[in-house]
C-alpha cells in the first residue's frame, strides 16, 4: 500500500504518558497523574470499572481530548495539541461510528478522500484493505446491512488504512454477543500482529484483557493500580483492589501475629493462624493489618479429620454455602472468612470423586507457598 506522507519523521509507536491529568470541571481529576510506558508494537489493555478514566486516557492519546497537565509522547515526540492525523493515531469507536450513508468501500476510503487522493487510487487502496479484513463480498453494502462483527471489521479497516502507528480501540467488543466476542478477539490480535503496530484497547472485561494484552493496565479512580504482563497482574496482584478486580483470588485480611524470618503468621479463624511467605513484600511487624490473596484454584477442600495434602499448613474450617458446576471445574462457595467471599475452584474430576453438598463441613487449605501478601 502506498504510504500517505504526513511529514511525520518516524514509524515508532511507543507511547509514554508522563504525569497526565485530566479534569473536566477544574475540581476533580478524572485522570490523576498517570505515568506509563507502552512499548512499540505492544497490545495494551486498559481495564477498570466505568468512570475510572480509562476511556479518557484513550481519548487523550487519540487527540480527542487535551490533558489538563502532563505529556503524551508518541515515538519520542510530544503530541499534546496535535490533531489525530498528525499524531498518526487512529481510533476505533465503541459503536464503530461508521458513516451510515457510505458503503463499506467508501467508509474505508474516507480518510484517503479527505486527503485528496484520486478516486481510483483511494478505491484501489480501500479494496486492498477490504480484502485484508475479508469483506470483499460486502464492499458495496451500507453499514446498516452488516452484522456486528462485519461492522467491526469495517471500523478496523477504516482506521488501519491511514497506516497509523497507534490504533486505539474503545471497548471494541462490547457491542457484540458472547460468541462473536471471542471470535473477534482473536481477529483483533491477528490484525495487530499483521499490522505490527501498537494497539491500545479499553475494556471492562478481565477475560478480554488477559486474553489479548501484552500489557495490562488496571485503573481505579483516575490512577493506575497496576501495570504489567497479563500473567503478572492476574497471578501477582499488588493489592486488594487489583486482586478483586481481576478475579480468581480469595482475599483475606488479618493482623500479623508472629514474624518468623521469611514468613509471617496471620491471625485468623484457623487454629494455628495462616502462614504466609513474605515474598516480595517489605517486612511486616507484629500487629500490622495485612491483606493476603490465595488463588481460588489453589484452594483444596478436605473432609474434616483427613490429612492435609503435602505442603499445606493452613487449615480453615468452613461450611459449603453453594455449589456451581462450571464445566471443567466446580465453584464451591464457603463461609471460611466472615466478611469476604471465599471460593474454591475444584477440578471437575476431583470434585465428583467425592462430591460435597451444601451444608457440608470441610477444611479449606492450600500449599503455604501459594499465599500472596498484598500491599
Amino acid at each position, binding site marked *: 500500500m502506498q504510504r500517505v506522507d504526513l511529514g511525520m519523521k518516524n514509524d515508532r509507536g511507543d507511547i509514554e504518558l508522563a504525569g497526565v491529568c485530566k479534569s473536566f470541571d477544574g475540581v476533580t481529576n478524572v485522570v490523576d497523574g498517570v505515568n506509563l510506558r507502552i512499548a512499540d508494537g505492544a497490545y495494551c489493555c486498559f481495564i477498570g470499572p466505568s468512570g475510572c478514566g480509562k476511556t479518557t486516557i484513550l481519548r487523550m492519546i487519540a487527540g*480527542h481530548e487535551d490533558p489538563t497537565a502532563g505529556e503524551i509522547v508518541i515515538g519520542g515526540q510530544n503530541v499534546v495539541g496535535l490533531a489525530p*492525523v498528525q499524531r498518526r493515531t487512529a481510533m476505533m469507536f465503541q459503536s464503530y461510528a461508521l*458513516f451510515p450513508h457510505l458503503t463499506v468501500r467508501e467508509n474505508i476510503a*474516507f480518510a484517503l478522500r479527505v486527503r485528496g487522493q484520486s478516486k481510483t487510487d483511494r478505491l484501489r487502496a480501500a479494496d486492498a484493505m477490504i480484502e485484508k479484513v475479508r469483506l470483499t463480498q460486502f464492499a*458495496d453494502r451500507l453499514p446498516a446491512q452488516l452484522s456486528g462483527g462485519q461492522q467491526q471489521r469495517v471500523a478496523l479497516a477504516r482506521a488501519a488504512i*491511514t497506516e497509523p502507528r497507534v490504533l486505539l480501540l474503545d471497548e471494541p467488543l462490547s457491542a457484540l454477543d458472547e460468541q462473536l466476542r471471542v471470535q473477534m478477539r482473536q481477529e483483533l490480535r491477528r490484525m495487530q500482529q499483521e499490522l505490527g503496530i501498537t494497539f491500545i484497547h479499553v475494556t471492562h472485561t478481565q477475560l478480554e484483557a488477559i486474553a489479548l494484552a501484552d500489557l495490562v493496565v488496571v485503573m481505579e479512580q483516575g490512577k493506575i493500580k497496576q501495570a504489567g504482563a497479563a500473567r503478572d497482574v492476574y497471578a501477582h496482584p499488588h493489592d486488594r483492589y487489583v486482586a478483586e478486580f481481576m478475579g480468581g483470588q480469595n482475599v483475606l485480611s488479618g493482623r500479623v501475629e508472629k514474624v518468623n524470618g521469611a514468613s509471617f503468621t496471620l491471625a485468623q479463624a484457623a487454629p494455628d493462624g495462616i502462614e504466609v511467605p513474605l515474598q516480595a513484600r517489605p517486612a511486616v511487624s507484629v500487629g500490622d493489618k495485612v491483606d493476603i490473596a490465595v488463588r481460588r484454584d489453589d484452594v483444596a477442600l478436605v473432609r474434616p479429620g483427613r490429612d492435609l495434602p503435602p505442603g499445606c499448613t493452613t487449615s480453615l474450617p468452613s461450611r459449603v454455602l453453594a455449589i456451581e458446576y462450571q464445566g471443567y471445574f466446580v465453584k464451591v462457595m464457603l463461609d471460611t472468612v466472615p466478611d469476604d467471599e471465599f471460593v474454591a475452584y475444584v477440578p471437575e474430576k476431583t470434585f465428583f470423586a467425592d462430591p460435597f453438598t451444601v451444608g457440608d463441613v470441610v477444611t479449606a487449605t492450600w500449599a503455604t507457598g501459594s499465599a500472596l501478601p498484598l500491599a
Partner: protein
Amino acid sequence: MSAVLADMPERVAPATTKAIAPSKGGRPWTFYVLATLFGLYVIALYGPMFCIYVLSFQDIRGGLVFPMKGHSLHWFVDLFTQVRTGDVKGSFDRSIKLAVIVTVITVVVSFLAGLGFRKRFRGDTFVFYMMIGSLVAPGLVLGLGTGLLFQALGLNASWYTSALGAQLSWTLPFGVLVMFAVMSRFDHVWEEAAYDLGASRWQSIRLVMIPVLAPGLVAVALFGFTLSYDEFARSLQTAGSLNTLPLEIWSMTLNVTSPSLYALGTVTTIVSFIVIGASLGSIVLIQKRRGSSAKG
C-alpha cells in the same frame, strides 16, 4: 410533517398484531367505530376542498354554488385571460419567488442553528425560547407591527423586504424546531470519527453531516416553502402595493363572483402538490440511491 415521517428510520420494531388479545379472525366492534370516525375525519378534512375543485370545472353557465352546471375548462381559461379577475399571474410569480427565497434562508439558518445547538452552552435554553417565541404572537399583529416599523423607518413595504421579514418570523422558528428533531438523530460520534480520519471541519460538514441529514433538510425546505406559499396573516400588512397569491385570492373573494375563483384554488393546489411531490420524491431518491449503491 409527512416528509419527516417518511424519513423515519426503519429500525422501529414492527408492531405486533396481537398486542392485546389473540385475534380470533374477526375484527372487534371498536374497529368499525374507529373506522367510521376516521372516515368522517377524512370527509371533514378534504370535503370542502373537493367542493371547490369540482365546481371549478363547470361551463360558462356556472355559478358559485351547487348544483354543478356542465363541465369544461372555461374558468381556467377565464382565470388567465380576463383582466377583471385580478393579477393572478403576477401574484403567483411573486409568491413562488418569495417562497423560494424564504425556503433558502430557512434551510440555511435552521441548519446553522442546528450546528450551533449540537453542544450545550450558557443560556442555550434562553436562546432557544427566543428563537421560537415569536410563534405565539398572532400573525396579523406581527404583520401590522412589521408594517408600522417599516413606515416609522421611512422604508417602503414590499413583498421582498417587509413581507419576507414577516414570513421569516413564521418559517424560521418552525424550521429550527424541525431541524432540532432531525439533528437529534445525528450521532456526533460520526463527526468525531471524521476528525479522527483527518477531515477538516468543512469536510466533515460537507461529506458527513449534510449527506446524513439531507432528508431532514428537504423536510425543512418543504416546511419553509409551504408556510410561505400560503402565508396570509403576516403578509397582509407587509406586502406593500403588490399582492402575493393568498392576498390576491382574498381580494378576489371580495369582488370576483365567478367560478374562476375556484379554478384558481384548483391551480394553486396543483402547484402545492407538485412541490410536495418533488420534495418527497427527492427524499425517496436520496434513500434509493443509497440503497442501490449498497446493492450494486
